[in-house]
């Protein structure tokens, strides 16, 4: 009885993993990347570059899955088409489209990196100005306030670009998984 109970739990777990691969692959990849970078004590620039590269890496994972489908690893993918040549042609077209979308994602990632750099510098300059002595009763300086305003603007743009970038890459991965599962 105990064995059967364990099997039920394991089976439902594996089933949950199988149906939620589109969530698990990006999440586990991000967590792995962060852990590896933290454990290996990489430089700040490297950690930032690694995290902002994640959407492009998800596109590469999608390409790998499509290549697997092209080579006939997935039977459920082949079953979607009448013949093997149709399945192969669709996989080739899908890989070409993924490449074109990857170019867009790469441009978005470049934007994310630039905005991160700007946020970093704006906050650095803000802290340098904050450490300077201020006369009592003096009005808040525009130089300090302006840097904080820019940091917030960069942060908002940074989030929007990341949402677009992750949205495209996670959506592509989910579609590819839908095709091959």
């Amino acid at each position, binding site marked *: 009885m105990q064995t059967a109970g364990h099997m039920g739990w394991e089976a439902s777990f594996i089933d949950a993993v199988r149906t939620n691969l589109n969530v698990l692959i*990006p999440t586990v990849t991000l967590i792995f990347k962060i852990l590896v970078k933290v454990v290996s004590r990489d430089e700040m620039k490297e950690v930032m570059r690694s995290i902002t590269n994640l959407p492009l890496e998800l596109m590469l994972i999608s390409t790998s899955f499509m290549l697997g489908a092209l080579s006939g690893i997935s039977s459920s993918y082949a079953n979607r088409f009448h013949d093997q040549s149709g399945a192969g042609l669709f996989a080739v077209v899908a890989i070409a489209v993924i490449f074109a979308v990857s170019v867009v994602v790469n441009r978005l990632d470049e934007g994310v990196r630039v905005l*991160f750099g*700007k946020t*970093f510098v704006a*906050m650095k*300059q803000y802290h340098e100005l904050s450490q300077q002595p201020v006369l009592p009763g003096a009005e808040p300086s525009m130089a300090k306030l302006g840097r904080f305003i820019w940091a917030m603007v960069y942060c*908002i743009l940074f*989030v929007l670009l990341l949402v677009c970038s992750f949205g495209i890459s996670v959506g592509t991965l989910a579609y590819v998984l839908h095709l091959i599962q």
Partner: protein
Amino acid sequence: MLYTALTLIGTVLFLTFVSCYMVLRIAVPKGPLRTVMLLFVVLTPFVAIPAFLKALIFGTKPMRYNAELGAIEDEIEQERIQIFGGKAMHPSISQRWRASYVYAIEKSAVAAAKLDPALSTSLCGLGR
């Protein structure tokens, strides 16, 4: 279908928040400022969609250009290139802001000149 869409949205938001948190840990030293920035990160995706729809339907009002903020952005950009390398962002955000503000002023001046032709002489010939 709905479940897939919801999980995808959840995943995108989770990845964005975790990435932003890691990045802000580097960019902003500990303190209330980081909390404020994280609050902005959390709110932005939810505020952006209604704001985008509102801008599509009702249009946008131009914000008055501030030259001092433009100069501050140039200083930030110069130091960014020194630290991280790469090319300067061109046009910068403040340059785009100035261009859109000037365009909005010109547009409203032309519209005003069309309504009252007598105005066109006093608007530096914008209406011609």
